[in-house]
Structure formats: C-alpha cells, structure tokens
C-alpha cells in the first residue's frame, strides 16, 4: 500500500506530550515513525508552518440517517466531518428508527465504510426505542460496534432505569452519555431563563433543569460504579457538580460545544434582527458568567472534550417562528476554527490542551484506539493552518443542512489536509 511522508510540520500529540517539528511516515495505513525522515519514496506532503495532529475526534454528532436523510446522511455527515478536520465521529442514536439493536449499529458502520471518509462510531440507545422504559440489548449493541450509550435528547426520566443502565453498561466498560435535563423544569422553554428571556417574552429553561439531572446522574454513578459522560455542559452550576464528582473519583467525564463558550442568550436579542431560530439549541445559550466558568473548567480538566453536537435541520423546519423551530445547530465544519479563535488565540487553552480535548480525551472516553500518532496507530492525521483567516459561510459546507449560527463570523484556523487510515480525504 501507499507511503506518505508529512515533512517539517509542528507535530502535536498530547497523548505522548509531544510538541515539536518532525516528519511523520505513514505506511499501509499506519503510523510507521515520527521523527526525522530522509527517505523520499511515496507521497511527500510539505507541512512546513502547519500543525500536524492526530486525526480529530468529535464524539457527539447527529447524522439523521436512517429517517431524515434530507437533513443529513452518514455520507454527507462524514464528509462534513473530514472537511472540519475530524477523522472519527461518534453519532447519536436518535434516528428513525433509533440505533437500539445490533443490526442498526452495524448499518452505521456499513454506510460509513461505503462513503470512505471519516470513521463513524455508533452510540447505541440505552433503552429500547429510546423510550426510557426498558434497557436496550446493550451487549448485542456492543457486538454491533456501539462505543457508548445514550438516549440523547430524551433524558431518562426514570432514575431506576438510569441506575440499571449505568450498572449494566459497566460490564462492557462503556459510558452512558447523558443529556441532562429535567423536562418538568424545562417545560415549554425555548431559551435560557433569565433577563433576556424575560425581555423577549420567550419561555425560559432554567439552569437548574440541567443541574438537577447532573446531580442525580452523578449520585447514581457513585452508587453503581458505572461510567457517566455528561453531554454539552452549559452552566456554572453544572461545572461545580462535575468538579465535585471528579474530586471524589466518581467516574464522570464531560464535554462542551463551541456555541456554549462563544455565544450567549443575548445573541437571541441582537443577532439578525432578533429571534433567529438558528440560535435555538438545547441546552440553550447561557450567559457570560457561564462562559467564564466553562473557560476555567476547560483549563482545569473538569471538561474533558469539545464536541460539535452537530444537529442538522432543514430550512423549512428552521425558517419559522423561534418558538416553533426545532433545537439544534450544525457544527462539524466550524468547531476547529472556533476553538482556535475563541480558546487558543485568546489564551484560554494552549494549543496542546485544546487538541487533547479533540483527540486523546474523547478516544479514551469512548475506548477507541484513536487520538494519537503513536507508532503502529491508525494513520488518522489532521493538518491545520493556524494563521489562515476566513469567514464562515454555511453555503460552502459539505453538510446537507445550513442551520449554522456563525454565518459571517471571521475566524482563524483552517484544515489543510485530513488523512484517514493513511488515505488523504481532504486536500486543500
């Protein structure tokens, strides 16, 4: 098979605390060596001035297939992923039908393989039909390739079911990924509850709707010894609970999305003349104070991973009154530049810390052999130009959907090449 040499890039591999200029030799889809390379056989990629990282991992995306293929497919979503620098993604099971049995998990692999872009890892649902009543066949799903379990979007209301899910998944060493929301408290809410929701007359979702559920799930994790991963953390109080849990060695990890550390609820008042449904997301955009707390949590490791929560919706669904629009925004092709612009360039995180949250950390949470450039690892590599400035334009995205809240935003950092299993799939 083919040989690729990536020459003279600044190689950053947080898993090995590696950060210096080096060459990477790829042979037969695997990393052969990292260091000085004198051979010039095979394809040579000049990476001078570029950052070379392990292929990025987005552990929280929605691909909509099967069921809503007009919004996204495994093919279009995994293509968007590699254009955003992601070589591996984990997709949520809230499809129609949901990923709640072995065959449906295998279907995801099969479709991803046919596309030949990113590696796609299915997340199975915790309960049958995501109904929150009976456990799905978690063992069978693991055989089908599920790397984690979640009823994302529909939090498991029954604490006993959640308890058994954590307990049962423990046997396979798989995490339960929890979308923490107490539906009684979030009620008809469509945005963060606070001054802005009050001004706009929109029903609010209080922070406590998220925090109360995190508290419950953390306590159940302590009880069961299972593994809990908290999806899209958005509030200061949520972070305090996770920090508390981690201090007590409860097996809790967490993630945040770029929109939750970039945008606040105020944007719903001002952006695009107000009430822009592209700003409607769950959990909702919070406040400056929450963003400050997220910054600290990213720095001290309370938040382990950064994810897109890529949630495609068709224009006819989103182009309606704010309160009628569905929750969610796309993100696969804007995560990386937002992290570079909002976290790295603002010195919230070092480049290496940021990359860890996109590589080795999510790989460890999901238990997948990815996220490092160690010799012998799968040759998933992302090449990034940190200085390249550009303007986000969803019309140019590979995703089928356009519900992006960052249209027109000037960002820095562009994916130059994405290599998956030794194959160059994006070549800019």
């Amino acid at each position, binding site marked *: 098979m083919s040989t690729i040499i990536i020459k003279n890039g600044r190689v950053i591999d947080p898993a090995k605390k590696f950060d210096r200029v080096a060459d990477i030799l790829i042979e037969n889809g695997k990393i052969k060596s990292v260091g000085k390379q004198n051979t010039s056989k095979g394809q040579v990629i000049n990476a001078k001035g570029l950052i070379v990282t392990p292929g990025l991992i987005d552990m929280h995306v929605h691909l909509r297939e099967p069921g809503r293929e007009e919004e996204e497919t495994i093919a279009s979503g995994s293509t968007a992923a590699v254009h955003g620098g992601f070589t591996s993604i984990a997709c949520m099971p809230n499809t129609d039908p949901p990923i709640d049995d072995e065959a449906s998990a295998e279907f995801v692999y099969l479709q991803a393989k046919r596309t030949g872009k990113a590696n796609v890892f299915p997340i199975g649902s915790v309960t049958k039909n995501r109904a929150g009543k009976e456990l799905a066949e978690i063992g069978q799903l693991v055989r089908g390739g599920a790397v984690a379990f979640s009823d994302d979007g529909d939090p498991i209301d029954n604490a006993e079911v959640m308890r058994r899910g954590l307990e049962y998944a423990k046997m396979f060493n798989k995490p339960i990924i929890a979308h923490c929301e107490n539906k009684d408290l979030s009620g008809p809410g469509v945005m963060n509850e606070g001054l802005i929701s009050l001004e*706009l*007359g*929109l029903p609010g979702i209080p922070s406590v709707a998220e925090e109360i559920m995190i508290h419950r799930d953390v306590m159940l994790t302590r009880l069961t010894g299972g593994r809990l991963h908290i999806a899209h953390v958005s509030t200061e109080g949520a972070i305090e609970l996770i920090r508390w849990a981690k201090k007590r060695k409860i097996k809790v990890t967490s993630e945040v999305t770029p929109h939750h550390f970039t945008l606040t609820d105020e944007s719903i008042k001002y952006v695009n003349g107000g009430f822009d449904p592209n700003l409607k997301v769950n959990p909702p955009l919070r406040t400056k104070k929450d963003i400050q707390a997220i910054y600290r949590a990213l720095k001290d490791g309370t938040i382990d991973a950064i994810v897109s929560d890529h949630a495609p919706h068709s224009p006819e669904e989103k*182009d309606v009154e704010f309160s009628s629009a569905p929750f969610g925004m796309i993100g696969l092709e804007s995560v990386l530049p937002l992290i570079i612009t909002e976290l790295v360039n603002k010195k919230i995180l070092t480049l290496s810390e940021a990359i860890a949250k996109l590589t080795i950390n999510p790989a460890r949470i999901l238990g997948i052999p990815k996220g490092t450039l160690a010799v012998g690892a799968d040759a998933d590599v992302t090449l990034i130009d940190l200085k390249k400035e550009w303007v986000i334009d969803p019309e140019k995205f590979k995703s089928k959907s356009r519900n992006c809240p960052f249209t027109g935003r000037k960002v820095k950092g562009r994916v130059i090449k994405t290599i998956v299993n030794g194959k160059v799939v994006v070549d800019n």
Partner: protein
Amino acid sequence: MIKTKIKWSRKHLLGLADLSATEITTILDTAGSFKEVSTRNIKKVPALRGKVVVNMFVEPSTRTKTSFSLAAKRLSADIVDFSSSSSSLVKGESLKDTARNIEAMGVDIVIIRHRAPGAPHLLTKVLDACIINAGDGAHEHPTQGLLDIFTIREKKKKIKGLKVAVVGDILHSRVARSNIWGLTKLGAQVIAVGPSTLIPDEFKELGVKISYNIDEVLPELDVINILRIQMERQNTNLFPSTREYARIFGINSERLKKAKKDVLILHPGPINRGVEITPEVADGKHSAILEQVTNGLAVRMAVLYLVSGVK
C-alpha cells in the same frame, strides 16, 4: 391638522424596547393631533389614500383588530382583514409563505398579531412592507403600551415622576412589558405587583420595583394598570385559584379607599369582572378604561401615519 415637520425614520414598529423617549413622545404628540379627527363631523383624512393595510391576526382579538381597522379607514387606506381561522395557516402553510403571498398582492403595511414572540421580526426579514406588531406572545404590544401612556399623559399632564403599578400576570404579559419599557423611558417609576410566581426577579434589572403586596404600595400610586388574569393559568401552579387571586390582588372599592384621591385606573381589556377588578371600580370615577379604547384609535392612526411615510 398635523405639524408639517415630524422626524420619524422607523419603517416598523416592533416594540417600545427599541424606541427612544423622543420617538415615543413623537408618536404621542402625533396621536394627540389625530384624536381631534375623531371629534369631527367627517371623521376621515386622506393621509393614507391609495395605501393597502393588512390586518393579519393569527390569534384572536376584537379590540385591537377593530381599532387598527378603523384607524386605517380614518386615514383613507384600504384595509384587508385576515384571520387565522379563515386562512391557509390552518392548512399548514408557514407564516413566512402566507405573508409573502399577501405581500404579492401589493401591501404597504402589515399589522400582525401572533402567539409567537418575534413573529413580527420574522416578517421584517421576508417582506418589504412596514410591519406593525399588534402583540407577539408575551413579548410586546407596543400600541397598547402607547395608548396606556397616552391616556396617563392626557390625565396627569406628565409621565416623569409618576408611580405606576402594573398589577397581575407580569411574566406572561406583553402589555406589562410594553408599559415597562415606555414608562421607564419617559421617567415614570413602574412597580410590578402580583404573585411571586408571575414576577421573576430579573424585572428589577429593567428598572422596575417589585411588590407582592398591593395594599402596601397602593397609597403612593398615581396610576394602577390592571392586567387581565387568564383563566387558563389556574391549572399551571402559577397561582392556586382565581378566587385566591381576587382576594390578594383584586382591585375593589374597599381597597381603593387607601389610594390617592386622583388615582387613575387602567385596564387593557378584556376584563374579568370580579377577578382582577370589581365592576364598581371598572365603571367608577377613577376608571379611564373606555377612554383607553378611544385613545387607542388615535395612537394607531399615528403609528400607521408615521411608518407609512418611511421609504
């Protein structure tokens, strides 16, 4: 009839939050001139002749819709009524498509009432017409706010320094919000009075005082604007019953004895007699409830007139 030099540059009226004190005063002054028209034998001026106005009411309303209709007619505009029960919205057409279709018929001004906050804002993005918000969910009801303020100004000869209580379900009230924005901008002190479940603390950040005790604040009030208590809120745990509400917050003549002699009573209607206000107060000497309706017409004429002049 109208002073020739009026400075006005807003094509839409979406809410009082957006307006400056000067702009609010401009509308009130213009409304003052139009009020005179209603007293004439021939109640019509040619200001909007040849203009087409659509009353797009996607939520039930009698008072506001009729008021806008009449206002447009007195300005000689052609007005078309469009209500949801007779519309294609019932057949699943989106608001955006419906509005575009209406506009394609050559409409200059769209007046919209809709249950969704921000529905008028959506229309500003898809239509070229002037958009007037006639109430969008719990967000704003700017012409109601303006007519309340107009009535207060007419009676009290000023706004600055007045103490105005807005009593009732503040949380769900677009009328309360428009009153708060408008009155505070003009220098009045607004006091929100009602059950603690219906007045989130964040209202303080808008410069509003909060009270859960009407009797305590009553003696210092110049104006009491009483909101309608929606019966459907009873079963949502926001308050236990309308009976209890009436006991604690209902404005009756007994309670009013503690008020200033010249206290002004307003109510945007429709009234639930015996709940938030007793009949003897609603029909009593302090009440300006029917004058509000009369003034509403003048205010809406002013708004239609002003926005229609903006290119």
